[in-house]
């Protein structure tokens, strides 16, 4: 404020030469520049954290926003879909829609005849939601019964994960030689003119060498341990284990040394699928020039396939370590080749309630639950909070009692939220007998939680209105109440809004008090009123994050994004309202 920058008479009085003064000025400027740099650095760092955090959440959430569907034709017959042979909606609701879907799948893969394979086809490809969708379609238009209809059936979560590339790595190499196909009993013999199979074989031999080395190391380590042990029995047991490892190592080495000898592919090795002549063969035994395998999807013919027209697909995750086996993956690959599976935006995520099937679980129930809870909270705590603040700030006499109240309000703002949950349990559920898990009770509890925040913020806002406004109003003859309600309160409104929004945002993220009043629950139906059972967004995030299916992890991240979106909308609304009410002077 004061002008001390120039080397003026002031500087001379301090006994500074102009040079010294200039140096001091430079130092001060440098200090200021440093301070600014710190500030920018702090903001940049915070920005990076934010970007990394949100970026991470978005990347994890992406799989939740798309879903794969199978386009298939089904013919729901009256016997299947109606429990008593009529088209009465009640009878249609109890029908067996899975039967219609099973028939549709059978049409897609007519070659699947054995019982075990058919069960796999029926159980592992489609989501149980597909039958529900068909039921809804039939209920909406019973005229389609008996006619072929094309539906887009939702795929099961494991199939969905595979197609999204989240289940296993997938390497595709085009065949370089001409491949000859010989059907030999139940298996297929493939012979290539180029070293297509030799490459894979070499990889296996390499793995064997690694295994042998690991076994030798283990044997050596045990041998060292055996040397250090004194117990006779223990040493004997150890030497047996050492011999075991040595034997394994020798066997692996022997197999690795013979570079030409064929190797058997087991379920603990990456799967090798050969796509040839429209079919899929799973390799079971691989040699340098030829490979033997079982047919997963039948070949159209046994003609020789020219170079580049057949492919070897390597699934890097061994079959034993994934939820889908090679057969189901082969079906999926086949459907993809035929253009029958396609990815869609998952509107379901925003339009349905919770489900135990990850591909069907949606956020709408929790979103509506949160919205209803927030509504109850807002409706209760805004008038009460502002009323209390106006009375305490403008009308209340200053005495011991009001001091005590003020201290208590400030203390309440710091009480842990779980305490309010306990209070809610004791008061609203046990004493008033309100329904458990209801947004009404959630709203009441959260209103108690945010009231102190709103009262404190509102009082601060009222206090910050210049006294001149109040005095001018009183001066021209307004009553105290008129002065407050016509002049002071409107000017304090932006501050009150900000306080309220901070309080509400705090309430939106609470889970602890909701646990005690039963809102941490699995609820399928989207709540329709404030007394229906409901859950809330943070609770949904918590519940999903604890389920084992990987797709639920994606849904968790997606739910976090929805919660953030909800917050942005709430804050945006607050800014909008503040702009409208804001008055400057």
């Amino acid at each position, binding site marked *: 404020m004061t002008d001390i920058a120039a080397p003026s008479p002031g500087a001379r009085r301090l006994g500074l030469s102009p040079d010294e003064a200039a140096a001091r000025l430079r130092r001060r400027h440098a200090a200021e520049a440093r301070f600014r740099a710190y500030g920018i650095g702090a903001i940049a760092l915070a920005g990076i954290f934010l970007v990394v955090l949100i970026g991470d959440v978005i990347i994890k959430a992406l799989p939740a926003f798309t879903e794969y569907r199978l386009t298939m034709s089904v013919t729901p017959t009256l016997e299947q879909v109606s429990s008593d042979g009529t088209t009465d909606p009640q009878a249609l609701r109890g029908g067996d829609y899975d039967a219609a879907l099973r028939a549709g799948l059978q049409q897609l893969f007519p070659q699947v005849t054995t019982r075990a394979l058919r069960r796999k086809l029926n159980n592992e490809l489609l989501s149980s939601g597909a039958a529900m969708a068909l039921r809804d379609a039939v209920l909406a238009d019973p005229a389609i019964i008996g006619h072929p209809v094309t539906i887009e059936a939702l795929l099961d979560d494991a199939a969905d994960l595979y197609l999204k590339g989240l289940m296993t790595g997938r390497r595709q190499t085009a065949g370089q030689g001409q491949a000859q196909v010989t059907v030999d009993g139940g298996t297929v013999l493939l012979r290539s003119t180029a070293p297509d199979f030799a490459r894979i074989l070499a990889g296996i031999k390499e793995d064997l060498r690694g295994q042998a080395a690991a076994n030798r190391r283990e044997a050596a380590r045990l041998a060292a341990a055996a040397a250090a*042990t004194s117990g006779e029995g223990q040493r004997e047991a150890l030497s047996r284990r050492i011999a075991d490892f040595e034997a394994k190592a020798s066997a692996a080495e022997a197999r690795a040394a013979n570079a030409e000898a064929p190797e058997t592919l087991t379920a603990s090795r990456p799967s090798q699928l050969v796509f040839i002549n429209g079919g899929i063969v799973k390799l079971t035994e691989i040699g340098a020039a030829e490979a033997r395998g079982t047919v997963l999807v039948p070949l159209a013919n046994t003609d020789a396939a020219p170079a580049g027209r057949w492919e070897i697909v390597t699934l890097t995750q061994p079959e034993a370590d994934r939820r889908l086996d090679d057969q189901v993956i082969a079906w999926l690959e086949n459907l993809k080749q035929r253009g029958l599976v396609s990815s869609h935006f998952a509107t379901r995520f925003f339009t349905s309630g919770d489900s135990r099937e990850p591909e069907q679980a949606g956020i709408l129930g929790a979103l509506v639950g949160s919205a209803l809870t927030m509504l109850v909270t807002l409706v209760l705590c805004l008038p009460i909070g502002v009323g209390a603040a106006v009375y305490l700030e403008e009308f209340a006499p200053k005495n011991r009692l009001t001091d005590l109240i003020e201290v208590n309000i400030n203390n309440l703002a710091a009480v842990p939220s779980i305490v309010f949950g306990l209070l809610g349990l004791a008061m609203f559920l046990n004493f008033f007998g309100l329904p458990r898990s209801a947004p009404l009770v959630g709203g009441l509890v959260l209103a108690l939680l945010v009231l102190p925040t709103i009262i404190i913020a509102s009082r601060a806002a009222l206090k910050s209105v210049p006294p001149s406004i109040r005095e001018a109003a009183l001066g021209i003859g307004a009553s105290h109440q008129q002065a407050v309600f016509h002049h002071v309160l409107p000017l304090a409104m932006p501050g009150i809004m900000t306080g309220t929004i901070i309080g509400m945002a705090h309430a939106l993220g609470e889970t602890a008090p909701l646990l005690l009043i039963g809102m941490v629950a699995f609820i399928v139906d989207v709540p329709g009123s404030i007394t229906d059972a409901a859950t809330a967004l943070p609770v949904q995030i918590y519940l999903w994050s604890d389920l*084992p299916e990987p797709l639920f992890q994606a849904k968790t991240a997606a739910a976090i994004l929805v919660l953030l979106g909800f917050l942005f909308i709430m804050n945006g609304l607050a800014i909008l309202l503040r702009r409208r009410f804001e008055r400057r002077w």
Partner: protein
Amino acid sequence: MKFRSLASVAALALAGVAAAGTAEARDQIRIVGSSTVYPFTTAVAEQFARAGLGKAPVVESTGTGGGMKLFCAGVGTDHPDATNASRRIKKSEFEDCRKNGVTDIIELKVGFDGLTVANSKAGPDFDLTKEQLFLALAKEVPGPDGKLVPNPYRSWSDIDKTLPNEKIEVLGPPPTSGTRDSFLELVMEPGAEKVLADLKKSNPNAFAVAWKTIREDGAYIDAGENDNLIVQKLDANPQAVGIFGYSFLEENAAKIKGAKIDGVAPNFDTIAEGEYSVSRPLYVYFKKQHIGVVPGLDKFIAEYVSEKALGEDGYLSRKGLVPLPADELARVREDVKEQKPLSADAGL
């Protein structure tokens, strides 16, 4: 005007509170209890609603103890109809139920949950005994003279030379968790019995303290209730070993592998056949007095024990529940069908 409208909204809200104040008859089943059984009961609840048998039940995740408290608080529509439990009902809880009028409880044993000790695929293979796990994790272990000393073991090979030469770093559930209780009972107690057989005879109390107290010097890390988090940490740190439920091992078989315990590797078959010894039964308890009062409760129980749900290929086994052996399942079904209540002399 603005204030008038606000005031009217507030009045409306209060009216709503008053209207809801009277508890009405419920048309929805309410279930509380263990978070371990939650994934299975919710699946049944959803199927129940899907099949049009009634409105979808509300399943709360409150923990076994909290669920029992709510369940035993009384009879009537203000109280839950069923509770999930990752252990059998305790004598004290049963008495408490009785006192509050919950006299007829139907016990449904639904299956098993295996507890696994697992590590990253990139880490060494573990083949542990319960004794070794006790020595690795207890706060105090017998020293050279047989007296209890603070746990001196830093790496697995300190315990037994044949174990990998890796630092002991175990991520497990916190003390509040039911999983932790099960781990103590299923692993630490039998492990301690082998090492501290004399102490058990001479001083049972000190023995109990020895197996119930997990070391606190950083080798055992409370990783929170969330098993997914433990899996992620194991994936990031190949040295570490984690303790969690079998269904998480099954879903994450690409990243982690289960340690053999007493020579048996954890998988679906070994747990189902009881060869893998670190597994616990899971239960759901129903109030018989609510059957007929809360619509659909009997149908819900029937759905739970149906072949479609609890059978060997049922949807619950696909969710990771290890089903009961066929003969035991038949017995459970029989009891449930007769609605046989749990009697006080059931050996609780």
